[in-house]
């Protein structure tokens, strides 16, 4: 029994010694200046979302002013995007500016859990560090009412079964394909019209510019088989060759205008007939300058127009 009292006394003495030692230790810490600076809690303006009528999946946005009594507040980092308690998940945190230029911290929360019946749950309170040491932004929790959208007991009536059915296999969207197809066809059609207009312009220019084409037009006004018709064809041949051409110069003409090669025989025949027509003053058989000129004009336009 004596031993027990002795131990009890020893324990009491140790406890008393410990109590006596504690205050000087605190005093020493204060003297060293190791006690943290006083923390100032700032409660800026908070624009809270509508406090009622939410269901699972809804997103609520809370705006916290980043200014307090004329002092701008900056955050060293954005609040973490994470589940905040049992009901909400913080989905986005961003800085927004209103029309007056005021900066706001916008926080999006999504309701990710739902009570079994309508109930007020709390948007979490915040305690955020600012870039100014010792100053923290503090907001209060805000109550919101959240309600379930499904009955506790399945009604098993149309649309209110145990679960909503699967999404159907999606169709491939044909509208973009149709749009691209129509666009390509319209463009091709427009370009074809442009190309035809260009081809017509080229033909029109060729008829006014190229020697045989001009001759063919002029010959329409002349009497068929008359001397002026023969002379006009000669002039067209001369213009094409860039010099006066006679029967023996046919090779130089073809060298200058190779596209006339398919008509080599007919041209030789024309020059022979021309000799007879002009110098023997006899009509010629089998050579028709108008037909010859038309054919040459066609070859000429095909090659040059």
């Amino acid at each position: 029994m004596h031993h027990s009292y002795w131990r009890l006394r020893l324990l009491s003495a140790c406890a008393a010694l410990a109590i006596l030692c504690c205050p000087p230790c605190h005093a020493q810490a204060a003297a060293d200046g190791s006690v943290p600076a006083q923390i100032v809690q700032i409660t800026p303006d908070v624009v809270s979302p509508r406090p009622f009528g939410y269901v699972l999946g809804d997103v609520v946005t809370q705006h916290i002013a980043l200014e307090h009594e004329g002092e701008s507040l900056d955050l060293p980092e954005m609040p973490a995007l994470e589940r905040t308690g049992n009901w909400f998940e913080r989905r986005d945190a961003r800085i927004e500016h209103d029309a007056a230029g005021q900066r706001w911290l916008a926080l999006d929360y999504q309701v990710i859990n739902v009570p079994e019946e309508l109930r007020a749950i709390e948007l979490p309170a915040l305690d955020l560090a600012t870039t100014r040491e010792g100053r923290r932004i503090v907001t209060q929790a805000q109550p919101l009412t959240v309600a379930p959208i499904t009955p506790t007991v399945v009604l098993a009536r149309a649309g209110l079964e145990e679960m909503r059915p699967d999404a159907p296999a999606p169709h491939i969207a044909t509208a973009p394909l149709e749009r691209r197809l129509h666009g390509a066809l319209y463009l091709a059609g427009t370009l074809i019209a442009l190309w035809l207009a260009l081809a017509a312009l080229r033909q029109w220019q060729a008829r006014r510019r190229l020697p045989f084409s001009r001759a063919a037009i002029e010959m329409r006004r002349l009497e068929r088989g008359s001397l002026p018709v023969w002379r006009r064809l000669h002039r067209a041949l001369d213009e094409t060759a860039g010099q006066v051409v006679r029967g023996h110069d046919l090779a130089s003409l073809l060298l200058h205008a190779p596209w006339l090669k398919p008509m080599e025989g007919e041209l030789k025949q024309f020059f022979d007939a021309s000799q007879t027509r002009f110098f023997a003053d006899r009509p010629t058989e089998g050579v028709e300058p108008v037909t010859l000129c038309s054919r040459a004009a066609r070859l000429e336009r095909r090659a040059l127009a």
Partner: protein
Amino acid sequence: MKLRSLGSLLASVIVICLLYAAWEAYRLSQARDFNRLVDSAVDAAATQSSPEAEFARAMSLAARNDYEGAVRAYKDLSRHSSGALLQSVLYNLGNLHLREALQYGPESIGKSLPLAELSKGSYRELLRINPEHWDAKYNLERALRLAPEREEVASEAPPLPQNSERAVTTMKAFTLGLP
């Protein structure tokens, strides 16, 4: 000569346009064929090759009760799809897990709970993309009724299975400090 060059250039562009139109017409025809197959039978559509056909394949596997095959197909598809298709993939994947969980029901909570958690994950991922997906909201709520996340549960320990030993005095291998 300038007009001639311009004409040649125009002709080349026309040819390119017509080739492009022909390619688009071919793709449109393929898309219409696929849509007809989807309307008539999902299985037939699954033989094509496109993200939509992969979706049809996953649906077909799910319809044949090949749970694992369907999950694999939906998961593969979720990695390289976007927009409305991704939403449908996440929704159907959630449904697949939830349907499986409901088959076990609250009586086999040990089996249904992990599946319900998987379904909740899919629905929540979908609601993150589209908070207005009402079918996902409905089914997530059903999953939450099957595997509720009550405040004390969320803040402390994982939920206990129903009918499990809750009182420490009746648990095996637990003593109250007696020798």
